[in-house]
């Protein structure tokens, strides 16, 4: 299990600096941890707790609330087949059976090669494109059994052009130093009142 590595830590600090209150950064940091390992390790949760000044139990509370934050290792690709009403009416159950037969796992399971985790999920808000699925949260619409087989073979030889699990956005947002909510106000400007630090706080316990 791993804490945030040096790279992630740098990003984490930048994320934290965007918020007036550090704990507001909790969810983005959990995504960051998931991006690093493919899932959120307990060590990463403890590390995040240190970074934002809450207890690990509080991080666990938040992390465990969200389905998309995985606390156990998953495959390189999460394949979430929608089983909402529209998709169901248009044959998603058959698609799920087909997937089970093809991959040899039940929803929730991961293939032996560690490539694919299959999930059956509730409506993913693409009902007009039913039946649909997501691969690492990227949509595939009006999916037939053939489409599915095609997808699986692409995933297996890594030609599907899908970002690895955990990575939500291809482009990382960057915020200029002068626009951060951190503790360094732009030149010539005082700290806004809500940011005023404890005057006796030297950070070294004195």
């Amino acid at each position, binding site marked *: 299990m791993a804490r945030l590595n040096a790279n992630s830590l740098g990003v984490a600090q930048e994320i934290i600096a965007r918020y007036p209150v550090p704990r507001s950064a909790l969810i983005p940091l959990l995504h960051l941890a998931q991006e690093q390992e493919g899932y959120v390790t307990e060590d990463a949760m403890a590390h995040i707790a240190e970074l934002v000044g809450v207890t690990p139990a509080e*991080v666990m509370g938040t992390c465990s609330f969200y389905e998309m934050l995985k606390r156990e290792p998953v495959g390189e690709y999460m394949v979430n087949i929608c089983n909402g009403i529209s998709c169901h009416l248009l044959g998603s159950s058959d698609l799920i059976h087909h997937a089970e037969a093809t991959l040899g796992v039940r929803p929730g399971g991961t293939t032996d090669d560690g490539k694919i985790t299959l999930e059956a999920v509730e409506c993913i808000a693409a009902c007009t494109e039913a039946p649909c699925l997501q691969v690492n949260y990227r949509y595939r619409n009006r999916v037939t059994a053939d489409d599915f087989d095609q997808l699986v073979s692409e995933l297996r030889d890594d030609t599907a052009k899908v970002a690895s699990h955990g990575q939500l956005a291809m482009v990382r947002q960057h915020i200029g130093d002068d626009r951060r909510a951190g503790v360094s106000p732009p030149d010539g400007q005082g700290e806004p009142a809500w940011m005023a630090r404890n005057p006796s706080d030297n950070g070294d*316990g004195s």
Partner: protein
Amino acid sequence: MSENETVVNITVNGQPVEAKPGEWVIAAAERAGVYIPHFCYHPRMNSVGMCRMCIVDIDAGRGPALQPSCMVEVSEGMVVDTTSEQTRKAQDGVLEFLLLNHPLDCPVCDKGGECPLQDQTMAYGPGESRFVEEKRHFEKPIPVNDLVYLDRERCILCDRCTRFADEVAGDPLITFQDRGDQTQVNTFPDLPFSSYFSGNTVQICPVGALTAAPYRFKARPWDLTEVESTYPNPMGDRVVVQASRDQVLRYQGVDSDAVNWGWLTDKDRFAFEATASELRLHTPLVRGTPLGRLDPGGSELVETSWGQALSLTADAIKAAVADKGPQSVAVLGGARLTNEDQYAWARLAKGVIGTDHVDAQLDDGLPAEGVLSLPRATINRACTPGGTVILMAPDPKEEQGTLYLRLRHAIVNDGVQLIELTPRATGLSHLAAFRLHHRPGEAAAVAAALMGGDIEAGPDGDIGGTPVSAVAAAAAAIANRADQPLTVVLGRPSLAEPADFTMDAVAELVRFANLLSAGGRPGIAFLPALHRGNVLGALDMGLAPGLLPGRITLADGGPALAEAWGSVPSNPGADTRGILQAAVNGQIEVLILLGADPLGDFPHRELADEALSQVGTIVASDLFLNPSTVRAHIVFPAAGFAERRGTHTNLEGRITGQRQIVTPPGTARADWAIATELARQLGADFGFGAPEDVWDEITRVAPSHRNLSMEAIDASEDGVVAADSSIAFTPPDNATPVPHVDAYSLRLVAARRMYDRGTLLQHAPSLAGLAPTAVLAVNPYDFDRVGVEPGADVQVISNAGEMDMPVVADPGVPRGTAAFGYNYPDLDVRDLVDPDAMVTDLRIQTR
């Protein structure tokens, strides 16, 4: 009350009710005698609307609608109906929902018989469930810490325990995890709910999901008898003591608005185990031969009769007085007794024997006269919204748990500003407006600058180790709030230094008191956070040198009391240190230990050791044999808490009742009775037949306790508060100079931890193992300077001694300082402290 305090008129079940603005409907109804069933609502925590049980018909002008009464504020003209058909249906439905996943294992559940879920299902619920599916399953009880078990199947997710941990205790180590029907309360894996207050969650859990290890499967609620009483700690926490078959089985907190709000620390809550310990003393003992013959030089304590023990003691006292005068008898301890016990011993010592060598504090508190001379605050005064609290005491989280909870609430919710004037960070530091962490011993300089003196840097460019700017900002903050009460929580912040430094700082605060109270402003008052049960009662009852019962000095009160008592000591006596020194010099013939263990507690162990070996007759009255009392010649088994009636005085001077529910072990007796009997053998008839007689006399002879009749104490929910003393504060002649610390040394701060090697704790099996092992805590920035690695085993050297221990990084310890626990079970800090030096400087080296 403020001027915008008006009344909101509402109607509850047809009756007009006067509610307070901002009050929840559920609270207003309850005050008016209408109980609305609920699970998650708790008057001392924020409403969350989790359980929906409190749903009633509320009409705020737009027609009746079902709303959770714990989340709706009263408004003018509001009509509430808690009995409507709709309400009943809602309650019925909510209960059916709450029971969907509930295992209904009531027959094997500790809560059965006192369970709100059970009771409310009976009163408002459906007779049966329509749920036929499988209930959710979790591993049956899992420990969340050493004391508390959690059965997640029983949990109804009311959020009380988790809110308590977060809002009240500030230890959010249990949280809701997962989601939907899988939601559960849990800790982080392998990170227990290590809170000093975890037992409270057991008390407030509305189902049997949280149970306490010391009570599990011990009794059924209907087998318990109970009395309301006062726990013997300096806060005087109100408790219900529950017993079955003459054994105390549980303490529950009582919501006293003035004191503990229903909370207790785990240490106090579970200390009941010690009362029933096998090791309790149950019969008088004398030193003799194994065959039971008396022999002052004997190697063993053998059982004897009360008559024998008492007359031996009386003889020893008579001989000592005849031989070397009354001051050859000395009394140490008594801080754990009731006021009545203390008064009886004080009268015996000072009025009958005539010695003033009496001290309840073992040189680990503050000078008694100084404490009594200060204007006393109440806890509620300290917590006045918008007020200021100066903390000049050991960490309240470690020593005065429920005071910590009250202060924490006041800071977080009521805008009280906390100024920490301590040698190290405390459990409240992260909430403090100003953290003025001074070098050990240098509080006075900071206090002076803070209160109106010049804010000028000392020779090191700071004020007592605190940055000038921080002191200036804090001083300005105090001035800003001068129209609100300023309360000083006052104690002995470190036992590695004498009380003189603290009293110097107090003198500075008092010097500016007039300034603070000018123009009718509330000014400054003090809450003495001293250590040990009824220590404040002991000071009030005269168990201190130079004092008589009623917060009066020997000089001022002597003549009046001499009339009531017959005589008072002619010479002022010495404090514990002086008494032990006198013993070493051969001037003490009889030493009476009242629940005291100088060997274990007095800061200078060698002196105590030497003193005990010099005294001709050591008499002890105690619950247990301790390292000191095993060396006694005569031992009286004393009755403890819950085994006798009496009154207790807390740090506010609040007097509340203690009641008896079980019989003392063997022939153990209450201390007032022991003192009275001894007095009789010495020719004085106190005329006490019951603790009420003693109290009666106290209210007649003790100036601060006049008119505080037993009836008045019992009549008021929160007891009565004794009057301030007429003793004037005498500032020390000269401030004690603080020696300079050299660049390679760290100055020692030693304070108590909650769990330690204390006698009571060690006899409570559930608590005995909780004391932490010894470590030296050092600021992370100091490791380079002293040249060791964090976590390393090091050798710590002072001029008094040396010992090996791990050193850990702790940002709460200021640079240049090292912090150590006073009473770790494994290492004794007294081996490092030079009792005659003003400060203790440590050097650290790798082994």
